[in-house]
């Protein structure tokens, strides 16, 4: 029945809870959402077109702006492409440094999501608690790489400068362990939070697989798929992906809190490796006139928001012929069309928030 008196509401680009500039065109019958059409492109910087104009070394600093909360992951992807193309082997210490900083970045990104998600549901204080922990990580990043977020630290073949002050990281892991207990006491035992998230936004397994959803959202629906187990950097780290059957917003929240512990275990192992081999004998690639051999190169990694991958086709020039990014939230926004149908307005914000959508990734 085409009910003509549907209210067309713009959950517009300027809205406090869309984590960036996502616009959802909703058709509402009362407060029930009849249809939802995401409209993206407000943060489109043309990363792929820009790549065809810039040489590899010029394009590299703009890479960690694709997802500014997980900048290290995209720098790692781009460096991996160059290292694969010129088959340069990374030294043990460089690999351990990269795993340590990647996992720290994942913890920072998940912490921000927990705070922002609670702010979406209306609770004021958890946002500030999680930012207090995230601040410690960003201070450490600034000390090592020079910038808090746009760190530009990995370079082709190694890292810009050796890592130091690892005790700060160990001290941070201790603080994080106690703080996670705090979060569980504030958030998990809160009956209103449980009421708002349990049973809402159920993502069936085949709907997720069909919509190419990867990462925490897929593992919360019961599929054991974590690209870290296959990634070259993570060889030799024992690591168990967190798979849970709940499929609803609460399980996605719990999965991300458990991922914090999982990442801190990985960081401890990385610190062991750093202590073992302290010689940073990295063979850097001379980037100024760098020309990749003709051919296609592909690298992928498990970013906090799902599988991220980079594909470069080069024809021997110093500029890539075609460069394509695949990001996690791109398909999560596409999933919103199905997931938000039939829900109510304040549940819709809770469901969209639970998928951890960040708009720079979607618009590239």
């Amino acid at each position, binding site marked *: 029945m085409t009910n003509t008196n549907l209210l067309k509401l713009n959950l517009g680009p300027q809205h406090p809870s869309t984590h960036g500039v996502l616009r959802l065109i909703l058709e509402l019958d009362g407060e029930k959402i009849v249809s939802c059409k995401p409209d993206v492109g407000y943060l489109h910087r043309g990363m792929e077109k820009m790549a065809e104009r810039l040489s590899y070394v*010029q394009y590299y*600093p*703009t890479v960690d702006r694709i997802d500014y909360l997980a900048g290290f992951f995209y720098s790692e992807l781009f460096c991996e492409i160059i290292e694969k193309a010129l088959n340069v082997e990374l030294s043990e210490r460089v690999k351990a440094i990269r795993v340590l900083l990647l996992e720290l970045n994942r913890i920072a990104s998940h912490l921000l999501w927990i705070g922002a998600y609670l702010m979406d549901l209306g609770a004021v*204080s958890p946002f500030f608690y999680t930012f*207090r922990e995230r601040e410690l990580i960003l201070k450490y990043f*600034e000390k090592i790489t020079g910038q808090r977020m746009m760190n530009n630290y990995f370079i082709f073949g190694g890292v810009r400068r050796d890592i130091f002050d690892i005790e700060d990281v160990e001290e941070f892991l201790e603080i994080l362990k106690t703080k996670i207990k705090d979060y569980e006491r504030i958030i998990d035992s809160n009956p209103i939070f449980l009421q708002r998230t349990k049973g809402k936004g159920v993502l069936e397994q085949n709907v997720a697989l069909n919509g190419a959803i990867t990462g925490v959202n897929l593992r919360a629906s019961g599929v054991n798929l974590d690209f870290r187990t296959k990634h070259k950097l993570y060889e030799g780290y024992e690591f168990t992906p967190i798979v849970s059957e709940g499929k609803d917003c609460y399980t996605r929240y719990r999965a991300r809190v458990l991922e914090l512990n999982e990442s801190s275990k990985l960081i401890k192992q990385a610190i062991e490796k750093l202590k073992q081999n302290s010689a940073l004998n990295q063979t850097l690639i001379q980037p*100024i006139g760098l020309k990749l051999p003709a051919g296609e190169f592909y690298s992928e990694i498990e970013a906090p928001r799902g599988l991220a991958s980079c594909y470069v086709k080069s024809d021997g020039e110093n500029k890539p012929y075609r460069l394509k990014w695949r990001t996690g939230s791109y398909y999560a926004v596409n999933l919103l069309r199905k997931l938000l149908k039939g829900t109510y307005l304040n549940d819709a914000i809770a469901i969209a928030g639970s998928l951890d959508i960040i708009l720079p990734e979607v618009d590239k």
Partner: protein
Amino acid sequence: MLKGIKGLIVSMLTVFKHLFKNSVTLEYPEKKIILSNNFRGMPIVEGCIKCGTCIKVCPSGAIKIESDNFNINMEKCIFCGNCAYYCPKNCIKMSDNYELASSDKNDLSLNFDISKKGEE
């Protein structure tokens, strides 16, 4: 129902506990943030040999070298530190000055005179 009430009280008490912890805010204008010496702020140039690698390396084309004037357009600079890292004589250094707000535009194009070439 009772588990709900217990949960209520537990979460309220943990938030109450935070009432007595000292605050983490930093009163910015009075107290400044302690920066590490790797911090990448405004670039400073002296003793350039006009080799031009920094122009090749800058992602946003912010650097122009005329005969005796080294111009950095701060509107375009994204503080990535490429120029400082790849300069062979490392005469570009990233200072720790991040307060670059200014009322008129031509403050944003930094000019360093590099005319004294034959000194060393």
